[in-house]
């Protein structure tokens, strides 16, 4: 048993992903052992993923999106952005300029040495760079390439740009998750499309890799992230398809599980979910609440009537939960057979005893961002346990490895490429900014 390699060891992937969906695909593949070579460029900073190369102090508004350790971008913000580092593990960073002929040549050498290319840029980026599959498959017919733009590479929205939240609006998710008594302004932007898109992309390239073992040939895969995530809305989709019914939001309720909801618990902004999936669960809840009379109450006698009368049940449950600790409620309810769970704050989830007991968290040290607790691989493999083997890369950190070991450039050629600004560890715009700042300092 000991010593079986990781499942995808030996598979080399060119990572041209941005923001969330593409990087999540390569996180899954890297966790399983694939080698990931991320294409960075000194000339064209990937601001969507590594953040702005020069960060204005005024732009450091808290909460959400990317952020920097202690809100300090430091001299090299691109190495300190949470937006990049959250999905940077196992990635190797090499720099090249695809707009110059020599850069194309370098990139084509990498294509020859790779199995898979993953990219989720806007549809026109790959076309404008003239690195479509038609071009790259001539360089390496075994190459598998996937593009996952927001809406696909054909159709009227081909050029539309969108984050997960925008796609989910268009495909009907946002409409279905408002508070039932409110409109879509009550919703928070969520990014299910990114997670689902990343997972489907990882699945897709592995399916193509399997096919390649039989044919020896690669292929091109096109995924519209919006279409992919629409599958997740199955019930609403099929109801319209079968019955012409336009479903609205059920909020926290579920007709198959009543009562179901979120109830206050002890502490500031603390909550517990309770979700009764059967008569037995409801009876157990009533006994725990010391309200046995509710069991015989005709309003709550069966799941249908409980769903109809949940407005009357909710205050009774909320009164019972309001002064109790949500973790203690969780254990009491679960041990009595009632489906329940605390609504965990981000500060609590790190200490959750279950995740800790499964050794889910892993501390990753980073020379420019510091040490942070990472969620470990979400795929638990019993014979080849997956762990974080490498931290997120600094910009250009793996240039030596990629240029010399993978692509076979000599030391002399390498130095020439450094001179020509193909290879480096600082964006050119940042370098110019630093030089200008120093000049200004010198003259003042």
């Amino acid at each position, binding site marked *: 048993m000991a010593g079986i390699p990781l499942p995808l060891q030996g598979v080399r992937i060119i990572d041209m992903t941005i923001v969330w969906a593409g990087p999540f695909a390569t996180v899954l593949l890297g966790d399983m052992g694939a080698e990931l070579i991320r294409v960075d460029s000194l000339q064209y900073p990937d601001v969507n993923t590594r953040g702005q190369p020069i960060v204005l102090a005024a732009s450091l508004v808290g909460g*959400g999106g990317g952020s920097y350790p202690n809100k300090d971008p430091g001299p090299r913000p691109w190495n300190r952005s949470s937006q990049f580092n959250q999905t940077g593990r196992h990635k190797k960073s090499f720099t090249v300029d695809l707009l110059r002929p020599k850069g194309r040549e370098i990139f084509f050498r990498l294509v020859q040495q790779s199995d898979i290319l993953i990219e989720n840029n806007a549809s026109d980026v790959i076309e404008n760079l003239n690195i479509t599959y038609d071009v790259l498959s001539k360089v390496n017919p075994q190459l598998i390439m996937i593009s996952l733009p927001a809406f696909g590479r054909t159709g*009227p929205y081909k050029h539309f740009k969108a984050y997960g939240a*925008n796609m989910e609006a268009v495909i009907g998710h946002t409409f279905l998750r408002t508070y039932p008594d409110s409109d879509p302004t009550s919703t928070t932007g969520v990014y299910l499309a990114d997670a689902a898109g990343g997972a489907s992309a990882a699945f897709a390239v592995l399916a193509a890799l399997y096919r390649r073992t039989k044919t020896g040939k690669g292929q091109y895969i096109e995924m519209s992230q919006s279409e992919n995530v629409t599958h997740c809305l199955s019930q609403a989709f099929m109801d319209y398809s079968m019955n012409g019914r336009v479903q609205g939001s059920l909020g926290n309720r579920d007709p198959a599980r009543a009562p179901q909801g979120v109830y*206050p618990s002890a502490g500031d902004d603390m909550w517990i979910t309770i979700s009764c999936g059967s008569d037995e669960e409801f009876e157990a809840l009533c006994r725990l609440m010391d309200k046995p009379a509710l069991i015989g109450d005709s309003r709550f006698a069966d799941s249908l009537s409980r769903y109809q009368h949940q407005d009357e049940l909710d205050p009774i449950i909320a009164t019972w939960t309001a002064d109790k600790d949500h973790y203690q409620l969780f254990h009491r309810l679960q041990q009595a057979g009632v489906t329940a769970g605390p609504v965990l704050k981000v500060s609590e989830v790190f200490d959750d005893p279950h995740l800790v007991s499964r050794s889910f968290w892993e501390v990753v040290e980073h020379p420019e961002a510091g040490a942070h607790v*990472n969620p470990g691989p979400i795929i638990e493999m019993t014979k080849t346990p997956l762990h974080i083997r490498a931290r997120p890369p600094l910009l250009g950190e793996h240039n030596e490895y990629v240029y010399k070991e993978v692509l076979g450039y000599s030391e002399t050629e390498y130095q020439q490429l450094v001179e020509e600004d193909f290879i480096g560890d600082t964006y050119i715009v940042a370098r110019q900014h630093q030089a200008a700042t120093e000049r200004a300092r010198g003259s003042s």
Partner: protein
Amino acid sequence: MPTALEGITVVDLSHHIAGPYCTKLLADYGAEVIKIERPEGGDPARRMGPFFRDDPHPEKSGLFLHLNTNKKSITLNLKTELGKKIVKDLVREADILVENFSPRVIPALGLDYPVLEQINPRLVMTSISNFGHTGPYRDYKMSEIVAYAMGGVMHATGMPEREPIKLALTVEQFLVGNVAAAATMGAFMGALIHGEGQQLDLSIMEIQVGNQDRAISNLFTYQYSGEPIFRRNREVVRSILPGGVYPTADGYVQFAGFQISWWERICRMIDRPDLIESEYFTKPENFYGNQAVKEEVDAILYEWLFQHTKQEVMEKAQAEGYLTGAINNMEDVFNDPHLAARGWFTEIDHPVTGALKYPGPNFTMSETPWRAGRAPLLGEHNREVYCDRLGYTPEDLVRMREQGVI
């Protein structure tokens, strides 16, 4: 035309949503998926709505019909000795087994991985469970709302003055199936290359905590900046650029924009190029994090937004390169010109419901087709699998039915 996963055989002991979505992906791209259902009623998803013409019937559940395309259905009682033997016979010739029972069930049936591995050392066994096969919550129950609550982002979803709110329907369970499909293919490729299978212990809770649906972002932002993401109904006032949900003449749109260079796009969208160079709006102390100036900008925006439909707003914003989506209901989705132009909706016929529109391919492969086959009737493939594949006679099938095995 051969499919991508032609030649892969999957024994599917899964039910409900997460496991079946995993095996749907495998089946849609060509794997042979043999779905084992309980003789009484089959997969519980057959009892879940919506139903065709609102008629609750085991062959008319829209959820089941969608989740089980391209699969074969056999009925089998796993609690009988013959049932267990048949599973083992199927595993001998299979590549993958997918199950999402609670962790106690498979060992109790004597079908745990160490047993099956003896029969087929290359078997990949994908086990999906609420909290995983170890740890203090192992035997606890879970439903969609509990998964989202404990995964960490429900606390940051909804309005600050109200209770946290879940996402729609059962989307998190679909996401679990999606991750499970990727994991299964990864382990399968490992078994193919290295000659040895293994079991995957996938925890729904961990997939929630560690996925890209804001969860990873929230965990990192909190550690980096000390600030968690809060519930809010609008984007935090990062800049005067519109972000979050805005009203239009006939509904709502979702905007997203962060970069100062995008101010120009918004000005062009509302046909106010005069504002592009406005020193007042673009000086950093007014542009970033300034509630009062944002309200001024919003007032200008609202005037324009109320004169345009959500579709018009999306098209005009996108023409300028501003991230925007119209907030559509399902009728809008079915009438969306883009999905129609791509021919994405796929009509699939079915003996009980007739032809219906289904979601089309998750992705399109240039050399290997997606399959648009229907979901099976309960036990539809009993004869094919038991007689043609395993060598039982039709008379055996009669006895197996009498004995409650199938």
